[in-house]
């Protein structure tokens, strides 16, 4: 599912807007989903960013979406759609928080006010892991199952574009590209990914219950 984060479109106007189409593949050429493509304008934004309320749900004891990109300053709500309680937390430098056991939607969203990657977990279900990418730029998108991401209506100008993914084997900095955006631009990355090692959720023979 393609995601857009265009908070300045109305302020900057569409007349001189450009589109950025990105494709992210792994080292074997396979499409990479859940990669965040971020375009950072070299010229400062002309209008203030107006973050909106974002949402990361818990469905079937997983975070949905698993990777969520938000602009810095965004409040994020963590509604629990499961029938069991969750205890959502993060120890990440960009945001430390703790939502003790709850069902439904916590009354107060969490404010993500520092750029960076925030890894979230559940203290009850250790296999649950999600990522919130807090972008300093309002221009970003997350790749879909085909590895594609589209950032529309970008103001023309110079940008630094980079890619982040939870399994990225190289530094995010090494994916940087400087581009001049005048009209539509297609970009493609081929990135090395580390194997994904997650805490087991599969059944263990003989458990639960043993005598």
């Amino acid at each position, binding site marked *: 599912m393609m995601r857009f984060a265009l908070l300045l479109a109305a302020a900057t106007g569409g007349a001189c807007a450009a589109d950025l189409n990105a494709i992210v593949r792994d080292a074997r050429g396979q499409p990479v989903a859940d990669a965040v493509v971020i375009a950072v304008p070299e010229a400062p934004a002309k209008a203030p960013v107006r973050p909106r309320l974002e949402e990361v749900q818990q469905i079937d004891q997983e975070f949905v979406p698993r990777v969520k990109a938000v602009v810095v300053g965004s409040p994020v709500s963590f509604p629990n759609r499961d029938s069991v309680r969750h205890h959502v937390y993060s120890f990440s430098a960009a945001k430390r928080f703790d939502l003790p056991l709850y069902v439904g939607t916590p009354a107060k969203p969490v404010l993500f006010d520092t750029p960076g990657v925030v890894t979230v977990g559940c*203290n009850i279900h*250790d296999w649950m892991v999600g990522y919130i990418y807090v972008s300093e730029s309002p221009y970003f998108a997350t790749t879909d199952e085909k590895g594609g991401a589209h950032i529309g209506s970008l103001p023309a100008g110079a940008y630094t574009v980079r890619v982040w993914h939870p399994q990225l084997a190289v530094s995010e900095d090494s994916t940087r590209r400087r581009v001049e955006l005048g009209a539509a631009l297609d970009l493609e990355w081929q990135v090395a990914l580390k194997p994904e090692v997650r805490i*087991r959720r599969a059944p263990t023979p003989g458990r639960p*219950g*043993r005598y």
Partner: protein
Amino acid sequence: MLGAALPLAAHAQWTAQYDAGLAHERNFSRAQQGADRISDTAITLRAALDRALPAGESAEITVGAEARLARYTRSHGASYAAVGLNGGWRTKLGLGRTAPWIAADASLGFEDAGEAVRDALRSAVSLSAGRRFDERLTTAAGFAYDRREQREDLPVVPGYGGKPFSLQGRTLFARASYAIGERASLTGSAALRTGDVESSTRRNFAIFTAANAIANDPALGADFIAYRLPGARTRTIGGGVTWDFGRRVALDATLIREDTRVAGGLDYDNVIFGVTLAYRP
């Protein structure tokens, strides 16, 4: 009190699991001499239903029931059906996936075997603690007390009790699991158990003098006798690999070696190889 429990029950979680497997024992009779050692393979089935209830900010109580079947290919009289109940309490000592945890578990079950001498009521309690170090490595260690009560007294020798399958023991155990990829994990375990063991052999004066309960064990052969040997020490080392097929199915292969030391030189060893397919709907 009931009213306070109801909101918790509303957020309880049911978990069902079904296991099917094969288990081969090189010394199923747990005999000392080669001529008495009987190897056998069992087809095993298990169905379990658990309910986890939250108990505070980072603790949960689990109650469950299970049914098991084991069909031995050679020793038909040892085949059994079993039902059991279990309960446990587990809490994390902190926040996060690497926070250590402690747990207390108890279980009670009844086994109905092909031969009456092997019918038994089993119970166990354990205390354990563990810690996950990262996504790959998780460890646990603990203490367990197990008790098996043979249902029927079947004496064959005057002056000796007829319940060689009534056993009890205390075990110190440790286990670890290490993920070696996106789907595969290696597991390892070690345990030291002290207490009673049961050993089935043909007539043997040395074991006769060391035993404190004796009965016929026709499951292994008309000439086999079951002896209860007190004060045994069993060291167990195990290793295995688990392969996950998604979040609901896993295939587990384990190899376990047991070395039992008994006073009077009545030592024996055993190797158990098992393959189990587990499914959680």
